[in-house]
């Protein structure tokens, strides 16, 4: 009996490691290997061209704006869903998951329809000198859309778990709404928020499809890092493509590690 149980446990472990290796570790490892195939110098030169630097700058800028917006919206929306009762709550709850269900390309196209010259808002905005498509606002909108659910979905269960007694206790002690939120609710949900921010950041940094549609992919202007990688790849500039991919992966992993370090320091 024990022997066969050990065997089955080993088998399961082998399967899990093998599965992860085939699907995740080996592909990412290959990129790492290929990026430095011609040496660190070549890799460095490939991703420090002005075009590449602009693409990284744009990606980080868009991610910062989109994640900030989604954090504020996400926390507010989670509070609304958990702490209040209103008609249409189920509808909002379902709508928040739409970005998970819809392909990013479709999201890009829907923004195109709304903000294009013939779109509902596009004509009026253009007449008033605001260019949404093929510029920063459109790319930010697309990124907000695709990374919207993460913070809400991480914070809702935490709010359920902590309950509202601490908040009520704060109120009986004289705290108004804002004091209660800042001194009781926010510290209690901070790890939910932090995890949501990490996931949303990773998603925002890597967004390709929706941004590809709305950006117009103008080199050196509306080209984000993932778009740059795709173009370099298409032109057989493989060292640049691989290295840039690596940088993107590192940015996401870096966010995760920073959050972990912060958490450890506090505990």
């Amino acid at each position, binding site marked *: 009996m024990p022997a066969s149980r050990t065997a089955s446990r080993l088998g399961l472990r082998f399967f899990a490691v093998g599965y992860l290796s085939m699907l995740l570790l080996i592909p990412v490892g290959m990129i790492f290997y290929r990026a430095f195939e011609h040496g660190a110098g070549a890799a460095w030169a490939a991703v420090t061209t002005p075009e590449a630097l602009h693409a990284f700058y744009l990606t980080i800028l868009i991610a910062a704006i989109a994640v900030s917006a989604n954090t504020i919206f996400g926390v507010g929306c989670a509070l609304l869903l958990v702490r209040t009762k209103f008609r249409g709550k189920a509808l909002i709850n379902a709508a928040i998951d739409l970005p998970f269900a819809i392909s990013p390309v479709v999201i890009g196209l829907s923004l195109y329809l709304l903000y294009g010259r013939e779109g509902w808002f596009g004509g009026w905005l253009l007449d008033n000198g605001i260019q949404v498509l093929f510029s920063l606002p459109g790319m930010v909108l697309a990124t907000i859309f695709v990374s919207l659910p993460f913070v809400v979905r991480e914070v809702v269960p935490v709010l359920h778990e902590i309950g509202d*007694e601490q908040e*009520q*206790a704060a109120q*009986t*002690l*004289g*705290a*108004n709404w804002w*004091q209660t939120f800042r001194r*009781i609710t926010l510290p209690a949900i901070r790890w939910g928020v932090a995890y949501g921010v990490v996931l949303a950041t990773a998603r925002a940094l890597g967004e390709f499809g929706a941004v590809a549609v709305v950006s117009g992919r103008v080199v050196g202007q509306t080209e984000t890092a993932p778009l740059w990688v795709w173009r370099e790849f298409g032109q057989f500039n493989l060292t640049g493509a691989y290295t840039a991919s690596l940088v993107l992966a590192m940015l996401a992993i870096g966010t995760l590690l920073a959050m972990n370090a912060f958490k450890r320091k506090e505990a």
Partner: protein
Amino acid sequence: MGISVKGASKKFGDFVALEDISIEVPDGSLTALLGPSGSGKSTLLRVIAGLEQPDAGRIVISDRDTTDVPVQDRGVGFVFQHYAAFKHMTVKNNIAFGLSIRKRPRKEIDTRVRELLQLVHLDGFADRYPSQLSGGQRQRMALARALAVEPEVLLLDEPFGALDANVRKELRVWLRRLHEEVHVTTIFVTHDQEEAMDVAEQIVVMNEGRIEQTGAPRDLYDHPSTEFVMGFVGPVNRRGALFIRPHDLEILQVPAVEAEEAMIERIVHLGFEARVELLLADGEQLWAQMTLAEAELMELAAGQIVYARPRHAKVFEPSGASRTEELAAA
């Protein structure tokens, strides 16, 4: 002064939580709201605190109509069953919370917190986090936190409900002593009649959103005005229309007037007292309470045939009136 509730009603959907409730809580008193779960006692407490808004009725605290005053400005201290400790704050900061919201000077806060830590016997725990405290310690911290802002009334919602039986008894005694020390008007909610009798000066018995009876613990026990109070405050046997306290059930070894034949099913030894469980000829069960010494003197044992007779019993008329029958004297 004190607290008065005048005709408070509250519904949650179709569920009637409070139905035209009026109570007077004297200034400086310690009052218990006693009732089974769903009787409305917690809702009444939350309405007084301002955590729930009544559908109708007024709440008056210290001669001030506070019905429309938000919870922040009511001057109530509230203690929750599950402590509601601020988990990310130290004990010290938990207790200081209300004062720091009021922007009191640092020095004053420090002094007050030190006093309160002493009052609730938590000196030396100032820098711990709630997760490092036992349940009883957490609840004492919650009490200190509520008292820090010098509330006009202290409201406790099943404060010992989540604690072990031993800790619960200890804290009861402690709460009574604390009340003698700080003398703030206090209402506490409980479903445990023993706890209410032990701690409170006045008990309000609630059932299905209504008040059954209000009175001193002894009054409720000796002169219950409804069947519900008789059954809820203290143990009771029911025989037809008669309500008999177990210690009013006399056990005889020979037949007598008004005495019914019964078989002893079981004798439970509970330290000083014994609980004698009886089976009557018609299959109904009664139990009698006596001292262990009495039971031993009579050499009672399971399987024995004895004769049970109530010394006195209570009858509740459908009209709402009640009378006590002195049966043994008949």
